[in-house]
């Protein structure tokens, strides 16, 4: 059922794409049709796989480091008010600096290899994770915190046992955004300078007007994002299952059968 839906979405997207190409008469060197892209995808599957693999590693490492850094900053920010006052502006700035300005600096410090891409991807997902987590941590139920204080809990114990679990749903929100953003982080990281990876392949293909190859790479990247997002989503849902959710549909009132005849 779920797989079926995904397939239908995919088919719908492709149709939309085809329609777009036809209706707006976009020249193929700007937006090729899905068929051309699919053919190219199959024809250069090895190449895509080779570069895709590199990018996948960067994405996962970036997600890992970024999440770790983000969570650590958030804990720091919530643990002490001074940290918050000083760290928050830094955090915001970290988000606002365009990569290309930092690229030479990053290459200088981290070299041309994996490291600089991972740093880039981490930087990009760092802020959403940290911001969401901070918000979650600060929104802990004051009643619970009061209770813990009377119980003689240290601020650290309160952080770990009360604020942290309570902030998981908010953290999950941030992580979902991060999961969808990490691929673009890695690709932008490859922009810093590389000779492998989907980002490299795309720029390369773009520079040479191999637009169908570029879109094939793009499709693979989108696939990564979706896989990452929905895998993480499922995992996070399990972790925050205690949190009541109310779909407009799922929590609908049931209806009892009206009585038919005397029973």
């Amino acid at each position, binding site marked *: 059922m779920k797989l079926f839906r995904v397939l239908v979405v995919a088919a719908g997207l492709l149709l939309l794409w085809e329609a777009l190409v036809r209706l707006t008469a976009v020249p193929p060197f700007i937006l090729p049709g899905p068929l051309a892209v699919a053919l190219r995808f199959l024809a250069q599957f090895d190449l895509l796989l080779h570069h895709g693999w590199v990018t996948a590693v960067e994405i996962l490492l970036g997600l890992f480091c970024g999440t770790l850094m983000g969570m650590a900053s958030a804990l720091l920010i919530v643990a002490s008010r001074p940290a918050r006052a000083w760290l928050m502006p830094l955090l915001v700035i970290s988000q606002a600096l365009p990569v290309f300005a930092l690229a030479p600096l990053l290459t200088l410090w981290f070299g041309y290899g994996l490291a600089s891409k991972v740093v880039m991807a981490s930087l990009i997902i760092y802020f959403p994770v940290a911001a969401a987590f901070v918000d979650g941590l600060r929104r802990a139920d004051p009643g619970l915190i009061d209770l813990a204080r009377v119980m003689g809990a240290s601020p650290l114990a309160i952080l770990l046992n009360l604020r942290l679990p309570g902030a998981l749903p908010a953290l999950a929100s941030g992580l979902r955004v991060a999961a969808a953003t990490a691929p673009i982080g890695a690709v932008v990281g490859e922009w810093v300078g590389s000779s492998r990876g989907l980002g490299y392949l795309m720029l390369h293909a773009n520079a040479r007007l191999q637009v169908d190859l570029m879109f094939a790479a793009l499709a693979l990247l989108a696939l990564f994002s979706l896989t990452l997002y929905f895998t993480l989503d499922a995992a996070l849902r399990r972790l925050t299952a205690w949190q009541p959710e109310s779909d407009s549909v799922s*929590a*609908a*009132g*049931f*209806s*009892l*059968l*009206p*009585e*038919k005849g005397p*029973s």
Partner: protein
Amino acid sequence: MTGQAPSVRLRGAALRFGGRAVFSDLDLDLPAGRWTCLLGESGIGKTSLLRLIAGLGSADETRGHLSCSDGLPLAGRVAYMGQRDLLLPWTTVLQNVVLGARLRGGRAAARETEGRAAALLRAVGLAGREEDLPGSLSGGMRQRVALARTLFEDCPVVLMDEPFSALDAVTRHRLQALASDLLRGCTVFMVTHDPLEALRLADRIEVLAGLPPQLRPVFEPAGQAPRPLDDPALAQQAGRLMIVLGDGARAA
């Protein structure tokens, strides 16, 4: 209350959470225009039964037949006061009271009813707190806002889950009289833990007890509610009711 209150008839109600059945095959009649009280041990399924009648499902399986004496569906003419106060934290006390009007008719409709809501708030002893946020109220005050909201709904059928549990004896006594007065003619179903409260307000008292839980109609207190608490008959009945409740507890 607008219109004639119907009687409500529930047959073969069953409810299950996961592997644990709360009750199965319960039959219940709520006589038209009368006040029915439900007592029973904590956790036996009173709230679940009330919610089932209100059409609210969170259980994994819910079954049963529900009908009204006038043949019309119950939905849309029932007011519900939950065990939690369920106030909207982001809006004022007054806006919480007119919530029903707002949800059904929009902001304009709600504004027209604000006078009536303010009067109800005065009646429950919250004059002057209309513009406060619920977060700044005490537990009993919050419950009184929820009560005012329920009374405000002006429905022929009213379901209330421990509506006076957080109130002091004096305020409780006064608000029981108020509710009894305002809900005269309504078909009321109220869960309570206080036998005296049940005896004071109910035309009929049911006890949910046993394993599997069954409804046992116990009393039809005589006289017109609200009955005075110092009535010696009431004290005697309270003793008998406690015995029934104790038996139920021992049976479970």
